[in-house]
């Protein structure tokens, strides 16, 4: 079932009675070549690229709740490739290219909107750093433009440009960045994976991982045992629990990150904007709501909701950067469970157990990584070798100290990112 303008017109004229479910709801079979644990953005993308790039369709995605019910539905929908360090740069650059072709590739409207990301700076030192980051992005082949304060004033008239403490000196503009409809990304990958023969099994919680002689042989689930030659763990905030089923301890702490959206407003913010003097980012959704967030709450949590001090901190930054936002009412807030690694960069690697693969540690940056992560994880599972753009996302970098990717330069220790 393909989407087209003709189809939409026809359905509109016939009462929209011809639409069918976008994916099957199969019973789990007893045996698969590959089982992916986790039906979020990364897991569904992995299944899709296993089928599309490697022709592997004897694959099941096991999801304990409903598809896309975790972090892929609980983020601020920002897509960008403005990283600085080797390893991250290549990966996010590749991921952004996949975003750009996603709607055609999936035949699904993910509302990819390349409205541009602007990282503001507020001092000479921050300008130098922005210029350096922009050069790193340009060398990687992505786009970066340094805007001065006049250009920022023209593009973002609603900000407090002459704030007494944090005047805006300019911004690093990344035109190809933007936002996408987060749920649609999960649905698009689910539909495309399903149509290639992948079984998407919902309400199926993994309760154990079977390992014999150092080799994975399958999983135990709430819907029975499933044998598999290869198993991929891609469960974001629950990585520690699932890995523990295989006897592993991961370098991960799960934290809560809050986000907020206001009531719908007329268009007032054309880009994704980040504040340089506080951890704060904001964009306007296509419905008109201002979507914004800030730092972690900074304590381990699985509650999927935050505390008021975290909310207060974000609101203070919002009012400082964009005083007119005080007129808007906050419609709702939510929290996601962030799988934080010590250096703030992710892990796509072998687990050390034959046939068991890990994809975790996306911290608070997992959404933009969805296509790249799925592509690289599928490559790892299918070929047993690292995909070049993700080759530095190694599990052992903490043990050896080699290849740490501390993008913020705060140290490779828990609770610093």
């Amino acid at each position, binding site marked *: 079932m393909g989407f087209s303008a003709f189809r939409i017109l026809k359905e509109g004229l016939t009462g929209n009675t011809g639409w069918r479910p976008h994916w099957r709801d199969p019973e789990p079979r007893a045996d698969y070549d590959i089982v992916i644990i986790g039906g979020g953005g990364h897991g569904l993308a992995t299944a899709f690229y296993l089928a599309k790039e490697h022709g592997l369709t004897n694959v099941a995605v096991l999801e304990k709740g409903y598809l896309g019910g975790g972090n892929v539905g609980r983020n601020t929908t920002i897509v960008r490739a403005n990283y600085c360090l080797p390893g991250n740069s290549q990966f996010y650059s590749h991921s952004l290219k996949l975003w750009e072709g996603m709607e055609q590739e999936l035949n699904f409207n993910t509302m990819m909107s390349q409205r541009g990301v602007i990282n503001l700076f507020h001092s000479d030192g921050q300008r130098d750093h922005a210029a350096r980051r922009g050069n790193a992005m340009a060398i990687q082949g992505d786009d970066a433009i340094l805007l001065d304060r006049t250009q920022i004033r023209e593009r973002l008239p609603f900000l407090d440009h002459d704030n007494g403490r944090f005047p805006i000196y300019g911004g690093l503009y990344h035109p190809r960045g933007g936002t996408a409809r987060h749920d649609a990304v999960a649905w698009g990958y689910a539909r495309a994976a399903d149509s290639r023969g992948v079984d998407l099994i919902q309400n199926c919680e993994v309760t154990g991982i079977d390992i014999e002689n150092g080799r994975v042989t399958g999983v135990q689930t709430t819907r029975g045992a499933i044998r598999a030659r290869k198993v991929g763990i891609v469960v974001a905030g629950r990585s520690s629990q699932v890995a523990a089923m295989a006897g592993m301890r991961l370098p991960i702490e799960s934290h809560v990150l809050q986000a907020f959206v206001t009531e719908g407003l007329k268009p007032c913010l054309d880009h994704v904007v980040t504040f340089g003097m506080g951890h704060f980012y904001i964009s306007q959704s296509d419905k008109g709501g201002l979507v914004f967030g800030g730092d972690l709450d900074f304590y*381990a949590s699985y*509650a999927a909701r935050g505390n008021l001090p975290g909310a207060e901190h974000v609101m203070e930054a919002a009012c400082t950067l964009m005083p007119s936002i005080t007129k808007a009412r906050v419609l709702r807030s939510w929290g996601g469970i962030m799988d934080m690694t010590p250096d703030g960069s992710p892990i796509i690697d072998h687990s050390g157990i034959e046939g068991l693969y890990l994809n975790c540690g996306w911290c608070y940056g997992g959404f933009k990584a969805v296509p790249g992560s799925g592509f690289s994880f599928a490559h790892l599972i299918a070929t047993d070798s690292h995909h070049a753009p993700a080759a530095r996302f190694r599990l052992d970098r903490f043990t050896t100290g080699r290849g740490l990717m501390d993008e913020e330069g705060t140290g490779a220790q828990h609770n610093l990112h």
Partner: protein
Amino acid sequence: MRIPCPHCGPRDLREFTYKGAALMDRPTGDWSEAWDAYLHLRDNPAGRSEDLWYHGPCGTWVLVDRDTVNHAIHGARAAQ
């Protein structure tokens, strides 16, 4: 979330700084796997956990018995 400081009583979350899991047995000697585990690997429990918080106003490290799923606090004592 309000955390009961053993010296000051229940106090607002804003007065505390979070350190992380209460790992009280620091390895000794040169680098070893024990150091890697101490620095990086975490049980990261979903449920009851014991973690370290620093109470700024009175300067006490507090061991908090807390539920990470619902933020309930079951007890707190001064870390030794």
